[in-house]
């Protein structure tokens, strides 16, 4: 279970405070698949970083009773100067997994082939996303945070990601942020809208989309 209570986040920019999150409450259980809809700059990425534990909220409580991935997106999580395989060994050690096993798993799942032995800075955005997603599956988290990762790129690999997440639905939760309706519809069963620093959950996905379209 991942629970946020009254989470607020304020950044100070050029000496002036800017409130990004103004009291977010959320409870995510094992097996949930929640899509968070929000416009650009609505604080989606900030919310994911707080959920992952990378950033601390200015106020409020984050209760983390399951292991939460880093926000999986086009950037972040992998080291540009290292090869794909070295990244796999690095993260295996960070998360306490057998390095050899992780390298094998990632090579197979990401379908990067010999590119695994090239530096990540030579990868395309899609290849980087494949590496990072395969790495997160190898670590085996309880909760996956997806930051627009599946909204573009290779359709066949996206389907493979969806399959992998579906296969572990009973023991994993998925939180996906996006401003694309289709992405949320294919991955999620519930949706929430992040607007003016507050998060509103909707049982019915259509209602969420209707509210999202309103502004």
């Amino acid at each position: 279970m991942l629970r946020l209570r009254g989470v607020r986040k304020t950044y100070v920019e050029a000496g002036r405070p800017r409130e990004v999150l103004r009291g977010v409450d959320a409870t995510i259980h094992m097996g949930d698949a929640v899509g968070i809809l929000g416009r650009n700059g609505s604080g989606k990425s900030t919310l994911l970083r707080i959920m992952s534990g990378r950033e601390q909220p200015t106020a409020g409580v984050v209760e983390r009773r399951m292991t939460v991935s880093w926000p999986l997106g086009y950037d972040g999580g992998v080291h540009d100067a290292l090869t794909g395989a070295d990244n796999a060994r690095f993260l295996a050690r960070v998360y306490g997994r057998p390095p050899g096993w992780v390298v094998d798993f990632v090579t197979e799942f990401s379908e990067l082939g010999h590119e695994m032995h090239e530096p990540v800075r030579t990868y395309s955005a899609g290849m980087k996303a494949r590496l990072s997603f395969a790495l997160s599956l190898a670590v085996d988290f309880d909760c996956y945070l997806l930051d627009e990762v599946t909204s573009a790129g290779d359709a066949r690999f996206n389907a493979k990601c969806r399959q992998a997440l579906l296969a572990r639905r009973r023991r994993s939760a998925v939180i996906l942020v996006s401003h694309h309706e289709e992405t949320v519809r294919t991955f999620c069963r519930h949706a929430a809208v992040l607007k003016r620093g507050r998060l509103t959950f909707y049982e019915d996905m259509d209602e969420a989309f209707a509210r999202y379209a309103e502004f």
Partner: protein
Amino acid sequence: MERRAPRAILEDSGFWRAARVQAGVIGALILREIHTRFGRRNLGFVWLFLEPAILAVGVSIIRAVRREALPGGLDIVAFFTIGYTLFYLQRAVIARAAHTAEGNRAILAHARITLEDILIARTLLETGAVMMTALIFVVLIGVFSGVWPRSIVQMGIGFVLFGLMAHGFALVVLSLARFDADVLDRIIHPLMYFSIVISGVFFMVWWLPKPYQDVVLLLPLIHLFEFVREGQFGPDIPYHYDLVYAGAWILVLNVYGGLALRRARPFLLE
């Protein structure tokens, strides 16, 4: 996809578990740094060895041409190679601290990896690498000139204390980077060059007139240069150091730096 590896240690609860996670992260960071700095196509280890060697050879030539010896008849190569390895450690740990957050933005996406871990890994690796380099020089000098250090243990302790002090400075520098890492870098780099002159690379305290001695002995790193050199050259020449003074600096820098970095963290990670 059906092969399942044993469950990872993911929960950070409990002291020993947290310590194990921390050790795993620092170990991973050390190996990463070995790859990026010393590995594969990089010649990091070669430079670690060549830089002090070039300086020692250069100074030896100048001194030989001018027919000058070092005060106390110290071996020039022995004096400058070991002195320079200490400076190398100071530069590697302190000068690179300011850009730790930018340089590692991608891997800092992992909540487990902290700025403190990155600095600890760097200090451990650089101290270890520099100690290895110094040991190689000690053996080479011993074999070729027949002069062996009086106490290799004292030299080793000196290097470790030096690493701890440099770590304290690195914590302070990184916490200051919250204001502006680039401006800080521009200040640190000239200071580093200046510190070649005022640190113990080129002189010993007893070579200076008394009033200057009192001034340079305010600098904490000088004490450790002198301490290492006592281990290297033995009791025939005078040394000036106060381990209590150096120890107090190490303690204050690390405690203050640690607290300052805690406060600076949200600004550095933004």
